[in-house]
């Protein structure tokens, strides 16, 4: 792919107030090891990994707690040393508020590492590397949590794009990571280029991160194969396809993925953890979380996976009864429970401001002003999607209005003068449609099985009838006569016995 300095502006998008400076005043903070770590067994998209420890067992930092069971699955590790005190259903940070299986570890404060052999990449075949990667626990740390080893298992990639846009307001974890962990970040990019066997990587970064850009430019001054492309600050520039368009001018339709064009996109935090894994044999046991919003001391924290979020909020000057959004104000969701712990997907904890709260409580009728159409980066008709989702006309939504092209960026809700929670309607409609599809698949299987059963019963009946007919046909006339005579003799004998008895 040819690299130009030109910026290709995508359609729509918004320019919200970033609120980023409030959490970038101080360096990334680390808290003392929490007394208890509550680690959800599954923190990725895919199959639930298989638990490998039992209650009462002592575990070391970096030890595998659960192993991947399939290709789309990832490992979960212990973030410190201590004792497993429970393996049970516990609250997790999920929009449903439903519990999921978690492993609780009582830490011993020693923070004792498990002895990991250094990974010698040059000796590993690509298959062996894939297997090793499966146990790294590395998933997309931008929030999608898709297992990374799958994205690395491709030989069709020509360009690596580093998604450092971080376009959501308030979130600054990637910005701070690039400033403070520049070396590890670049190591991660190089490792990834090595694994994918590609010569070139481009970092796409929004122009609202001058410090990080400066640092990277200094560190990369001698490098020819990693370049930086500064893109304007327009939300949602961090969306994969929007970013690719901004940087390369390449439009990727809904049906296609960047991989089809030889492009793979990785998030900053994911690359840092890749670097850590290959240079220091360190699995994903911590992540950087931006703790910001209506707090006294917003900051970025390098938190162990499983740290209760209240410890972070308390340190940032918040109180336990504050409403918290996980993720940013545009795409995040309000946590149903605020006594959950840090997971791999948690890039930001946003204490809701009064303004956000008031937006959360009312909606006014749609006046069809079509402001949403002007900002929709997927070039949809958000007002039509809204009408049809509201009236539950799902067929029209998918066929006529391309609901599944919606990236749920929230631009439409942001500009809506009637304060309609548009994205919530789309999420509702999407999950209903997905459920209907699944039910109809299940129904198809049931129909097939029922039809087969009826066919089987019919077939068995026929076979039995055929068998009987065959038996009848096989016995010859002489045999038949013989049989009849034998029977007659038996009857005669019986009659004789009766007569004798009567005498």
């Amino acid at each position, binding site marked *: 792919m040819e690299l130009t300095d030109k910026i290709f502006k995508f359609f729509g998008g918004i320019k919200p107030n970033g609120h980023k400076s409030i959490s970038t005043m101080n360096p990334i903070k680390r808290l003392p090891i929490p007394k208890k770590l509550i680690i959800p067994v599954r923190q990725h998209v895919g199959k639930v990994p298989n638990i490998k420890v039992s209650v009462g067992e002592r575990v070391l930092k970096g030890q595998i707690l659960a192993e991947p069971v399939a290709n789309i699955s990832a490992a979960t590790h212990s973030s410190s040393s201590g004792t497993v005190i429970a393996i049970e259903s516990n609250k997790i940070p999920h929009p449903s508020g439903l519990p999921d299986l978690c492993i609780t570890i009582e830490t011993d404060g020693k923070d004792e590492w498990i002895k990991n052999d250094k990974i010698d990449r040059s000796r590993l075949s690509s298959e062996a590397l894939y297997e090793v990667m499966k146990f790294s626990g590395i998933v997309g740390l931008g929030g999608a949590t898709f297992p990374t080893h799958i994205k690395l298992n491709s030989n069709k990639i020509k360009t690596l794009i580093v998604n450092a846009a971080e376009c959501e307001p308030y979130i600054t974890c990637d910005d701070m990571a690039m400033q403070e962990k520049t070396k590890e970040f670049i190591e991660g990019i190089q490792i990834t280029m090595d694994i994918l066997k590609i010569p070139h990587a481009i970092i796409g970064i929004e122009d609202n991160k001058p410090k990080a850009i400066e640092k990277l430019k200094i560190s990369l001054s001698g490098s020819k194969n990693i370049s930086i492309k500064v893109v304007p600050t327009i939300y949602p520039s961090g969306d994969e396809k929007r970013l690719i368009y901004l940087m390369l001018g390449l439009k990727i339709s809904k049906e296609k993925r960047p991989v089809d064009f030889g492009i793979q996109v990785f998030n900053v935090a994911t690359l840092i953890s890749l670097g850590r894994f290959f240079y220091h044999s360190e699995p994903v046991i911590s992540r950087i979380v931006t703790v910001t919003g209506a707090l006294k001391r917003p900051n970025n924290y390098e938190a162990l996976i499983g740290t209760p979020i209240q410890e972070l909020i308390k340190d940032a000057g918040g109180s336990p009864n504050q409403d918290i959004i996980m993720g940013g104000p545009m795409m995040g969701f309000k946590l149903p429970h605020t006594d959950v712990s840090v997971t791999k997907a948690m890039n930001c904890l946003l204490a809701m401001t009064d303004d956000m709260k008031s937006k959360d409580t009312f909606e006014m009728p749609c006046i069809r002003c079509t402001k949403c159409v002007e900002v929709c980066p997927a070039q949809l008709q958000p007002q039509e999607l809204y009408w049809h989702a509201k009236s539950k006309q799902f067929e029209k939504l998918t066929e006529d209005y391309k609901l599944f092209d919606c990236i749920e960026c929230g631009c439409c809700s942001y500009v809506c003068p009637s304060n309609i929670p548009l994205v919530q309607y789309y999420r509702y409609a999407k*999950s209903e449609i997905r459920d209907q599809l699944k039910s109809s698949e299940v129904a198809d299987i049931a129909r097939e099985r029922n039809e087969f059963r009826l066919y089987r019963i019919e077939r068995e009946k026929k076979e039995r009838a055929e068998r009987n007919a065959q038996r009848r046909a096989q016995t010859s006339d002489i045999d038949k006569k013989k049989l009849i005579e034998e029977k007659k003799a038996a009857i005669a004998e019986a009659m004789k016995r009766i007569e004798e008895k009567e005498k």
Partner: protein
Amino acid sequence: MIAAILIILSITAFIGLVLGYASIKLKTDGDPIIDRIDKILPQTQCGQCGYPGCKPYATAIANGEADINQCPPGGDDGVHKLADLLGVEYKPLNAEHGETKPKSIAIIDESTCIGCTLCIQACPVDAIIGAAKQMHTIVEKECTGCELCLPPCPVDCIEMVEIPETTDNWKWKYPIHPIKQQH
């Protein structure tokens, strides 16, 4: 005069040929309306509608013998869809045929099972595995929750268990926001 008759005759002959060809070429197997009704039905094969399965019920609806509101597992949604398809008025579910229950599957208490095979014969989708005097078990993935295995069991060892809501099957809820008061 003769020319006119010939023209008319040739036109009718041509149209006849086209129609004859179309009737062979575009022939549909079976009644498509039955399949379309069957597609809407949930395929539990439970027989609560009074027919021995979803297809027979679909056939009965198509023939005008059964009403559209006799399928409890299909629920209100199902009745709406049938009403839309057939262009008839919606009517609420007929309570005589039972109520819509949350999705469940049957579970055999394997320690009580005597291996009589009666449930295997009752299962409309062959979702029960077992043999005479051997313990039976239900393939959860295939179970439609029809409850047909419950009555034949001589030791009452089958129980219906509701499918719990987890983070995997959870759905986003319909947003409920009060409309702002106008002052």
